[in-house]
């Protein structure tokens, strides 16, 4: 059985009285030890889905199960088994708490070990993310962005979770620092057989770290498959455009991503799609079963 199961998840918001459907029926499973990359552009619903998977965003309908139990309304013993790492490393940490306190807080809340042993655990966590013990007494703002993201990763690991859900964890970092943090994640994930859901708009970053890729567009999954197969032979016209832009900066898709307050009918990509047929304008294609598949009437019928 999958460690995390998303069944027909819908997330919606009310914006100025109007209903905005951010996630419009996503189903996916993540096996234990798997690393799934979730790719999509701004407004595609990937962060809403991430927050829903963490139980932080209520579902309009559908269900999300961790190890067979719903994540919404989960008690502390279930909750500690899946942890988030967010994009903005600075605002994810309390600016008035020292690094030692930031790392100790989850241990205190979940009453992990004897109070006296927690200080040793903080040292262990810092060592794990390759930060010197000197940072313990410092405040988050005195650290570099890369160091702050290491603290967030350490904090997420404090309770020995099985699953990490990372939402654009390296997007705000410079290229040289990004590589350090990606290497760290790789090492830690391998050593602890962690299951990862890694969300990013950057296909290269996702491809480097993950063994499977799922592509989101307009609140829906449009493609899923093993990383190498998705990147080398993408099926969905949208994934094809992303892969073309990755290879050559002047490539891309015509038009612009749709607005969440007014999704196109049928396949949401049809207004930008070069191979769309009449059926694409009225009927929404489903994501079929299989190892590598796409929700497209034309390229994966």
């Amino acid at each position, binding site marked *: 059985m999958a460690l995390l199961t998303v069944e027909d998840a819908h997330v919606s918001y009310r914006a100025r009285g109007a209903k905005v459907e951010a996630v419009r029926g996503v189903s996916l499973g993540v096996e234990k030890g798997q690393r799934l990359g979730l790719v999509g*552009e*701004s407004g595609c619903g990937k962060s809403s889905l991430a927050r829903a998977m963490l139980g932080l965003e209520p579902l309009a309908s559908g269900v999300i199960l961790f190890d067979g139990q719903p994540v919404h309304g989960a008690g502390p013993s279930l909750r500690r088994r899946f942890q988030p790492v967010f994009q903005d490393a600075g605002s994810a940490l309390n600016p008035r708490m020292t690094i030692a306190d930031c790392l100790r807080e989850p241990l205190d809340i979940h009453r992990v070990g004897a109070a006296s042993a927690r200080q040793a655990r903080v040292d262990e966590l810092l060592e794990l993310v390759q930060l010197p013990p000197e940072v313990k007494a410092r405040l988050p703002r005195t650290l*570099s962005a*890369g160091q702050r993201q290491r603290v967030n990763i350490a904090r997420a690991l404090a309770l020995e979770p099985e699953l990490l859900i990372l939402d654009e964890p390296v997007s705000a970092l*410079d*290229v*040289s*620092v*990004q*590589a*350090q943090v*990606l*290497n760290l994640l*790789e090492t830690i994930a391998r050593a602890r057989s962690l299951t990862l859901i890694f969300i990013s*708009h950057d*296909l*290269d*970053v*996702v*491809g*480097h*770290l993950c063994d499977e890729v799922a592509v989101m567009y307009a609140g829906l999954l449009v493609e899923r498959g093993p*990383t*190498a197969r998705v*990147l080398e032979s993408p099926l969905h016209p*949208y994934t094809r*455009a*992303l892969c073309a*832009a*990755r290879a*050559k*900066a*002047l*490539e*891309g*898709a*015509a038009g*612009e*991503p749709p607005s969440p307050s007014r999704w196109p009918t049928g396949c949401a990509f049809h207004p*930008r799609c070069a191979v769309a047929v009449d059926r694409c304008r009225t009927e929404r294609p489903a994501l079929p079963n299989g190892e590598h598949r796409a929700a497209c009437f034309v390229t994966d019928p």
Partner: protein
Amino acid sequence: MSTVEVRGLSVELDGAKLLDGLSLSIDEGRLHGLVGESGSGKTTAANAMLRLLPAGAKTRGSAVVGGVDLIALSDAALQRARGRTVAMMLQEPLAALNPVLTVGAHLEETLEVHHRLPKAELRRRAVALLEEVGLPDAQARLKAYPHQLSGGQRQRVLLAAALACEPALLIADEPTTALDASMKGVVLALIRSTAERRKLAVLLITHDLSAVRDVCRDVSVLYAGRLVEQGPVEQVFTRPRHPYTHALLAARPDPMRRGALEAIAGVVPGPGEDVPGCRFHPRCPRAEARCRTEAPVFAVGTACHFPLAPDEGAR
């Protein structure tokens, strides 16, 4: 002589050297990429050329555009040169456009400041500019407010405004950073075709190496305020000479090559931080004693005491 000749451009603010001796030239119709990580001085260079630095900043060197040295101009002459000689396209189009002005008002205001023209002529030119940057239904768009446009459309309006006074140099500061992957290519292609058609020199400031590789002719790599490597794109990207350029290219994740990335140890020094010798030496795998004391002079495409041999960094 090129359209743009920057020589020894340096900026000091509160004792910190933000930019230290940048030189580059750009021919008409060409794009020059200026790349570097945060704190490298790339935006400082743009602000120095536009004379938009905060009071107290000391600028040295020259930036000659179309025969005019922007750094030496008097304030009155500068007002005339901005827009006509050099124009800027900013990263965040929503912040760069006044939310209470329509697209038409933006363009007409820009045109009016620089040309005395009758109202009908201003409108005609505004429509022509929007058509040139490929905004559909230009006449109707004049009445639109920035929030009614999409990100890509706003970026086109900014480009139209930058072109309004027919500048010789366009500085584009991270023009695609706020855009989605599927749309970046369209904006880059638009900037490039505009440069070619108008014989415009473009300085493309970005941290996006692939954008520079695919649209620019030449590239300058900055590190902590200093120029470390410069040359034709195909050379710098395939056979980098400076260890920093080499490391920057190697640090990008490649999905087809799993395993550890060649990360650069340490962090970029802060603007006030004084690193003696080569500013990259604390992070450089090739550094020797000389690098710690003696700043390398820029020569033959790179500023490094021990550059990679021409084939050593081949990628």
